[in-house]
C-alpha cells in the first residue's frame, strides 16, 4: 500500500488492505498475455483480473502489470484511468451503477439516483464505510427498453422503481441471494471482474433468454403468424413457448 492508495477526502471510506496479488495471480496474468498476438493487448483483461483480486486497481496491481508487459507504470495508469469501469479506490462488495443517461433519468432514474445516495449516505464514486456498497452514475447501461435501469456488479436490474431499489439494497445488505432480471445470482464485484478478465464461471446458463421487452417483437410476429419464408432459423422446437403479447 502506498500513499496514493489512500482514499481522497469526503465520506469515511473503508480502510485499504494490502494487495492480495500473489504468484497464482501472476500466473493468471501471464496466461491472459498469452491469449493475444501481442501481450500488451491483454492489459484491459489484466486490469479486470487485478480488480477481481484486490477489488480495485491497486498500486501493486499497476506495478505488476507494468513489469510483466515491460512498460511503465504511467502507461498502465493511463489505461486504468481512461476506462470508467476501472476504480482507483476500493469498490464495495457490491457495485451499484445507476444509469444516468437522458432516457433512464427521465423515466425515473434521477429519482432513484437521489434515493440511493440518501439511503447509502454516499455520493458518486464513493464506498460505504463498511465496504458493502460502492456507487457510480453510469452513462447508458445499453438497456433502454428496460428503463429505468440499475446495474449491480454489472448485471441488469431492469424496470426499477424507488421501492424496488430499496428492497434490493436491503436484501444485498442482509446477505440474501439476489437474482438480476436477466442474469445469474449476484456473486459480487470481484467475481464479476474475474469473468470479464476472461476466466468464465459456471453461470452462463442462468437467467432468461433475452428478457421480456427484448422478446416483444418476436411475440408480436408469432401472434400474427408473421414468419420469414424460407428463413433458415425457423423454429423446429420452441414456438409453442411463445406467449401472448400483453
Amino acid at each position: 500500500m502506498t500513499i496514493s492508495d489512500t482514499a481522497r477526502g469526503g465520506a469515511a471510506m473503508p480502510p485499504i488492505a494490502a494487495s492480495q496479488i500473489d504468484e497464482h495471480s501472476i500466473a493468471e496474468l501471464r496466461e491472459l498475455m498469452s491469449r493475444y498476438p501481442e501481450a500488451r493487448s491483454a492489459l484491459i483483461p489484466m486490469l479486470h483480473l487485478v480488480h477481481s483480486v484486490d477489488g480495485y486497481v491497486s498500486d501493486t496491481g499497476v506495478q505488476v502489470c507494468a513489469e510483466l508487459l515491460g512498460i511503465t507504470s504511467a502507461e498502465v495508469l493511463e489505461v486504468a484511468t481512461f476506462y470508467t469501469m476501472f476504480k482507483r479506490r476500493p469498490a464495495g462488495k457490491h457495485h451499484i451503477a445507476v444509469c444516468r443517461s437522458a432516457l433512464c433519468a427521465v423515466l425515473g432514474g434521477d429519482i432513484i439516483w437521489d434515493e440511493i445516495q440518501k439511503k447509502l449516505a454516499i455520493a458518486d464514486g464513493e464506498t460505504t464505510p463498511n465496504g458493502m456498497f460502492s456507487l457510480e452514475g453510469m452513462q447508458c447501461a445499453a438497456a433502454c427498453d428496460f428503463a429505468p435501469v440499475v446495474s449491480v456488479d454489472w448485471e441488469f436490474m431492469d424496470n426499477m422503481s424507488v421501492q424496488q431499489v430499496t428492497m434490493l439494497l436491503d436484501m444485498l445488505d442482509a446477505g440474501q441471494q439476489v437474482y438480476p432480471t436477466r442474469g445469474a445470482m449476484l456473486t459480487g464485484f470481484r467475481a464479476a471482474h474475474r469473468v470479464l478478465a476472461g476466466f468464465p464461471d459456471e453461470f452462463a446458463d442462468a437467467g432468461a433468454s433475452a428478457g421480456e421487452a427484448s422478446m416483444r417483437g418476436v411475440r408480436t410476429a408469432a401472434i400474427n403468424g408473421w414468419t420469414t419464408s424460407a428463413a433458415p432459423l425457423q423454429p423446429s422446437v420452441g414456438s409453442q413457448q411463445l406467449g401472448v403479447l400483453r
Partner: protein
Amino acid sequence: MNATPLTPILSASWGAPYSWRLETYRGFGGYTGVLRALQLTPDQLIGVVQTSGLRDRDGARFLTSDKWSAALDSGTGVKYLVIDCAESEPNACKDVPLLLASPHLVIEGAIIAAYAIGAHQVFICIRGEALHAVRRVQQGVAEAYRAGYLGERALGVNYRIDITVHAGAGSYIRGEETALLNSLLGRAGRPSSQPPYPVSSGLYGEPTVVSNCETIAALPAIVSQGGEWYAQFGTANSRGTTVYSVSGHVQFPGQFEAPCGTTVRALLEFAGGIREGHKLKFFTAGGLSTPLFTEEQLDMPLPYGSATTAKAVPGGNALQFFDETTSVLRVTRRWMECYAAESCGKCSPCREGSWWLSQLLSGLAEGRGQEGDVERILDICDGISGRAFCPLADGFVGCVTGAIRQFRSEFEVGYRRAANELFPEEQSAVFAWNESVPTAKSGNGGFR
C-alpha cells in the same frame, strides 16, 4: 414478395428455451450457413454478400462486401477480424439481447466473415458492463471449439480460426473504429488519424475489418438462404432486416426485428403507442447523435430517413419517445453530461466545449441561467462544429443546436425557473411515485 411487418430472422430463436446453447441453435438450422460458405471461394462468398445488399449496421453503413473486398485485396498476409459488440452509443440496446439470446449467430457469422477476408484470428469485443452477455459468448465460443467449429481445421476444412472474447471496460468513444482498435492494443480508447484505414493497416499494423455485431449476425442467414433471398427485405438503399429498439414513454418498449425502411410510426405502433393518457412530444432516432424529431417526422423510414437517400441517420435503429411531461432542456442537459463524461479528451474543442456546454445547460435546467446563455451555447457550438477529430463533437453540436432550434423557449425559461417546476420529474417517471408495496413483477422487470 412483400415482407411481413415484422421479420424475425436474427431474433427467430430468441423465444426457445436455452436459446443460447449450441444444441438449440443447431435445432434452428444453425451452422448450415458456414458449411455452405466453406464450399465457396472467398470471392464467391463476397459475391453472395454483395447480392444481399447488406450494409454494415453501424453509423457509416458501408456495403459490407466492399469492406471485405478491400480486405481480401490487401494480400495474403496476416489479417484480423474485430467484432464490435461494445454498443456504447447511448440509446443503442440491441446487441445485448442478441448476445444473450443467440451468441452463436455472431460466432457462426464470425467464421464466415473471417474465411471471406482471409483472417485466422477474430476478436469479439463486448461491453464489460454487460456481464451476462460476456458469459454467454464465452460459453458459446467454448462450445464451438468443442464441436470442432473453431481451432485448427475448423469444420473439417484446412483453415484455422480462433476467436478471443475481449470484455471492454467502459467508454463511449470505443464505438469509433480506431478507438476500439486502440483499446484492443491495451491503450486508451482514443481515435487515431485516418488514413491509413484499418482495412489496410489496423490491429498490429495488419489489415483489419471492424464489423458491428449485428452485421456479423446477419451472415448465417444470408449465406444459407442466398443473397437474393435477403435482398427481398428492405428498401433499395437499405436491404435486409434490422433489430429496432423502441424505448421511452411507450406502452411496450422492446426490440422489434423488421425490414430496413420501416417507418417510425409503424415501430411506435408495435410498441403499443405512447403510454396511456399522454401524447408524443418528441423522439430521437439512432443513438443520441441525431436531432430531435416531432410528430411531423413519424412517417420517416429508418435507418435512412428516406427510402431513397444514401445518407443514413447515424445508427438509426434506436428510437426513444418522450411524452409531453418531458423537459427538452433536462434531456439535452443529460445528453451533454454524457458527452462531457465520454469525450476522450484528445481534441480541445470537444473536451472543453462539452464541459462548458454542460455547465451552461445545468445552470439553465436548475433555473439559475443568465440572460444570453442560449446565445452563448450556440456560439460555443459554432466554435466546436467541424473542429474535432471524430464525429462525437459534431454529434453533440447537432443535438444541442437542434433542440434549441425547436424548443428555444424551454431553454430561455431557465433564466428564471428550474425545468423541474414546469416539468415535474415525478410526472415523467414510469413508476408510481407513491407506490408503497414492492412488487417483483415476474418477467417484466423486477428481480426474484
